[in-house]
């Protein structure tokens, strides 16, 4: 492992987002706070409890997941798309680094950023609602696995995209709807049976459910199924990245 190279790439990526600290940190924190205000405080007063947890506290894990998913995808996709678009990628590709080292640098930085944001939002949420975390280690595991998996997905999108439209298309048309429909703001038992079945096809349901379980011990699906699902996504993402590297797809003609 060429540690110096990976470290350099990782640090440069982190530094790049520090240059745009307002976008990187302030805006997701602000938008999550707005969710708390609207859903937690305003609507929450009308919904007493979900599965024995106050509505405000109930949506905390879902909101963190929502932010983690969207930020991981957008950080990682932009992180690799930008140098491809500007041409500076030549330097990374001509460096004595293996592809996997390049992935660790880019994806590691993107995942770190969204993890930091996740923690910031977690702390911010505390200002709005009291909540407890029953399984902190499992929570950390879900957080890390989700950040890494969706950063890999973002990396894939950033390589696949050949323009800014495509770069925004997937998050807009796929990630955001899946997250909103993935049980962020409700428990899936609240849905009619037909929609419950449909919802189970949504991968985000498993993430949110497992993550919420680590907080309150309540879940829509078993936490082990959640864990298995996220490991499955991770494996799928790694397989696609491996294919990209083997074929040189969009990176090396």
């Amino acid at each position, binding site marked *: 492992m060429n540690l*110096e190279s990976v*470290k350099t790439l990782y640090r440069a990526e982190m530094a790049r987002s520090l240059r745009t600290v307002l976008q990187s940190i302030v805006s997701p924190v602000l938008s999550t706070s707005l969710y708390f205000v609207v859903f937690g405080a305003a609507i929450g007063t009308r919904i007493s409890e979900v599965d024995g947890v106050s509505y405000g506290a109930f949506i905390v894990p879902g909101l963190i997941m929502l932010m983690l998913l969207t930020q991981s995808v957008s950080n990682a996709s932009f992180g690799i798309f930008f140098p491809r678009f*500007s*041409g500076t990628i*030549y330097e990374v590709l001509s*460096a*004595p680094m293996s592809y996997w080292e390049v992935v660790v640098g880019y994806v590691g930085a993107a995942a770190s950023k969204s993890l930091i944001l996740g923690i910031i939002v977690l702390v911010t949420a505390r200002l709005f609602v009291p909540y407890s975390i029953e399984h902190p280690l499992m929570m950390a595991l879900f957080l890390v696995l989700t950040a890494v998996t969706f950063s890999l997905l973002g990396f894939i999108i950033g390589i696949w995209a050949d323009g800014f439209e495509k770069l925004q298309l997937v998050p807009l048309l796929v990630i955001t709807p899946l997250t909103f429909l993935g049980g962020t703001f409700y428990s899936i038992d609240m849905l009619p049976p037909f929609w419950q079945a449909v919802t189970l096809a949504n991968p985000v349901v498993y993430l949110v459910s497992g993550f919420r379980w680590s907080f309150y011990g309540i879940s829509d699906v078993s936490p082990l199924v959640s864990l298995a699902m996220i490991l499955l996504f991770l494996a799928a993402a790694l397989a696609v990245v491996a294919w990209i590297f083997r074929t*040189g797809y969009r990176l090396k003609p």
Partner: protein
Amino acid sequence: MSEARDATVIRVEGLSKTFAGGFEALRAVDLEIRRGEIFALLGPNGAGKTTLISVICGLVNPSQGRVLVDGHDSVQEFREARARIGLVPQELTNDAFIKVWDTVSFSRGLFGKPPDPAHIERVLRSLSLWEKRHNRMITLSGGMKRRVLIAKALAHEPEILFLDEPTAGVDVALRRDMWEVVRQLRDAGVTIILTTHYIEEAEEMADRIGVIRSGELLLVEGKHALMQQLGRKELTLHLREPLATVPERLARHALSLAEEGHALVYTYDAESGEEDGTGIAELLADLEAAGIAVKDLHTRQSSLEEIFVNLVKEEA
């Protein structure tokens, strides 16, 4: 054997590249670059210069053949091969908001070298960038940006530097500057491979020249040997009385009439060996015997530009 290996720093063997669409950008290229030389890869736009460089540097996968950098296969032993190479790309690609110092330091780290501010300072000073080290890239002129790209390529102390069209679209003064920079680098022991479609540049800078056209390396020669071998010399004889045709008894000489019969042009190989000579003495004797009086004469050697144009024309 080991001596030969030491003298050759890059060996390209039977390298072909066919792009996904089926376009053949390189056709069985064989090339050796000698340690410490300035090698110019000369060819028209689209000849395959950038593709050849890109394969050597690991940016494009070869379809066939291989590249050895200091004996290391550029694919199998890519770490060893790439660590020795610095690349200055053709396009002025950069991250607009990064600062000069940061981007040059980044390049060093990316190539796996521990930080060395003293080296970065040396590189920046040698490229007259020291005063600009805190500037963001976006504030620099085109010439300065090119220098930053060179600094980035030199940050990890490579033995070999590729400069892809370093002076394309650069004005004359900057071009001279760039040549000076390249010479200093060569004096510091760096092997330099530059591509250009300016013959002037190859003529000015290179120790050896490779001419590439349509993905084929037509020839590789020392600059002087190239000029001598392919450089035809012309002797123009201005005549006192015009001629209608070249007289019969002068037929054995390569003569043609010019200036409406007022001049005879004699072409000969500048390099022709001493034993048969240039043929000028015989020609002059025959002229005298034929009673043709010569008023004036002058000789001219073709430039690399003419050689190049002829070569590319001949092969086409």
